[in-house]
């Protein structure tokens, strides 16, 4: 178990190293790095000085090691526009994005898994067909358009909920968060639903398919013969068996939620790091883009690692199977 965990950790570090090389290559090798790292209005002398200061006259390997060293020290350059450290800007926005992704994940998992199991149990009912049809619809509808529809309906027509922005004036356990006040929650609701919809549809379909498979197995028949009550049958016997693959999907999809929040944040003017990324891309603020990438890559690698470790805990069979 411990050696497996250590092996996965090593794997994650390798992925991080690879991705840092990819980001390095992307930013430093495509085009002139100076164009990307210093503002276009700089003079020739300033360019030469900057080139020397950045070590661009050194060999590629040395440059990459320097980039790595700076990255490890948390120095990813300064934003061209606000002149504050790029990493700090990203990390300031991280809580808002995590908050949004977490709420969306809660909605998607809290609704998707029960609905999926229910649909599999009542597979022949008319309601099941309607729900699965809606799931296909939710699977196809573009996230940003759903956001607009929600704004049209709930903000413009009914005027029930705000159409954008974040209110983190409330506190929960001493942390400023949208969960801390009703106003905060009302700002969070629409973006969270819009972000959750695609994953909700995905989870309904995956849970449905996985449960259908589990329900055909002998131990379910045995449990039913023993007279196990329905809530226990579905909530324990079935859930435990679809749990391993579902945790893996949910973990990976959480990463996708963070990535997709780029879109939702732009629709709802949610001040997360995705909105910052789009603003940075539009204003050619490369250090911020690089900082976003490295933070996201680290986050994804961490999520993958945690998912792998949870699978090791949940499924004893994996511990002996070893790494492929």
């Amino acid at each position, binding site marked *: 178990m411990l050696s497996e965990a250590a092996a996965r950790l090593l794997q994650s570090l390798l992925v991080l190293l690879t991705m840092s090389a990819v980001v390095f290559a992307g930013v430093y090798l*495509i085009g002139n790095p100076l164009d990307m790292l210093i503002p276009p209005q700089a003079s020739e002398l300033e360019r030469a000085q900057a080139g020397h200061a950045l070590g661009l006259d050194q060999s590629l390997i040395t440059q990459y090691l320097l980039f790595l060293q700076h990255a490890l020290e948390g120095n990813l350059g300064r934003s061209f526009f606000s002149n504050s450290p790029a990493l700090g800007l990203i990390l300031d926005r991280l809580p808002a994005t995590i908050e949004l992704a977490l709420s969306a994940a809660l909605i998607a998992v809290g609704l998707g898994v029960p609905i999926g199991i229910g649909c599999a149990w009542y597979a022949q009912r008319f309601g099941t067909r309607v729900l699965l049809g809606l799931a296909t619809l939710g699977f196809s509808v573009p996230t*940003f358009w759903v956001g607009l529809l929600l704004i049209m309906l709930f903000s413009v027509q009914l005027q029930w909920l705000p159409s954008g922005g974040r209110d983190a004036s409330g506190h929960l356990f001493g942390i400023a968060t949208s969960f801390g006040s009703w106003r905060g929650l009302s700002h969070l609701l629409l973006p969270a639903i819009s972000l959750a919809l695609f994953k909700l549809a995905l989870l309904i379909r995956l849970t449905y398919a996985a449960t259908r498979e589990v329900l055909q197995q002998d131990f379910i028949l045995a449990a039913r013969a023993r007279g196990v009550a329905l809530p226990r049958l579905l909530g324990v016997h079935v859930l435990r068996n679809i749990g391993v693959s579902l945790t893996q999907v949910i973990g990976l999809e959480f990463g996708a939620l963070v990535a997709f929040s780029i879109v939702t944040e732009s629709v709802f003017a949610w001040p997360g790091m995705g909105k910052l990324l789009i603003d940075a891309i539009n204003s050619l603020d490369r250090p911020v883009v690089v900082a976003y990438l490295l933070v996201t890559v680290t986050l*994804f690698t961490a999520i993958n690692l945690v998912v792998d470790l949870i699978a090791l805990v949940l499924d004893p069979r994996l511990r002996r199977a070893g790494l492929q």
Partner: protein
Amino acid sequence: MKPRAFSLAVAALGLIALAALCAPWLASQDPHDLAQLSLAHARLAPFEAAPDGRWYLLGTDDQGRDMTAAILYGLRTSLGVGLSATLAALAIGLIGGLGAALLRGWPEALILRLVDLQLSFPAILVAIVLIATLGEGTGKVVSAVVIAQWAYYARTARAVARVEIERGYVAAARGLALPQWRIVLFQLIPNCLPPMLAVATVQMAAAISLEATLSFLGLGVPLTRPSLGLLIANGAHYVFAGQYWMSLAPGVALLALILSIQCVGEQWVERLGPQGQP
């Protein structure tokens, strides 16, 4: 899904594709030709009469563009980007996957690692980052979608090819001492194609959605040739003024397009059985 629903999806997709193809004859105007537009007709609601008594089925946008025409032409852009990106990604994935299955050893391990690494990052993130490095434009969008999606095809191609290589017809062809390229080109590829095309259909829905999302974010196709995503983005500014039609109708068209492709693709994958699963 029932066969009836499948036929319905195929029919809907056919109609949409036909409408996009015939856009120049169906549309009342060329929405890209600014000379044909009149600002006096700007932001008319559906059926609302302009000063000269003219009205539009789906209203007009902020440039006085007939939304019906804009959507028909937008469909062309969306379908065009989706089709070309899908074909290119299919070709690259097929070569990569077949290569992996044929060569085995370290090339296979390398390709598999690359595929795994890329699939652990969402396509939308890969595409946005690529646009940020490559720059904007229709060609760049296509390449971003291709790079974001090739790995799905490569994984399927390798899985299918490994099964097909073991089949009798390949052994027979080898027994006839046919050159390797002939076996690959005329035996292996035709037999690998059906599941690949089914996957390609599902991925095409994803590609069109991806292009729409990039264009909505202002990272996609140029303003001069708006796709459905860009039409929605333009209309989004007027949502708060209650002028819903500029983003509602293009969205419905986009949803109909993606949904019909998705349904056709999923049904196709299902019919081929577990072998065709990505």
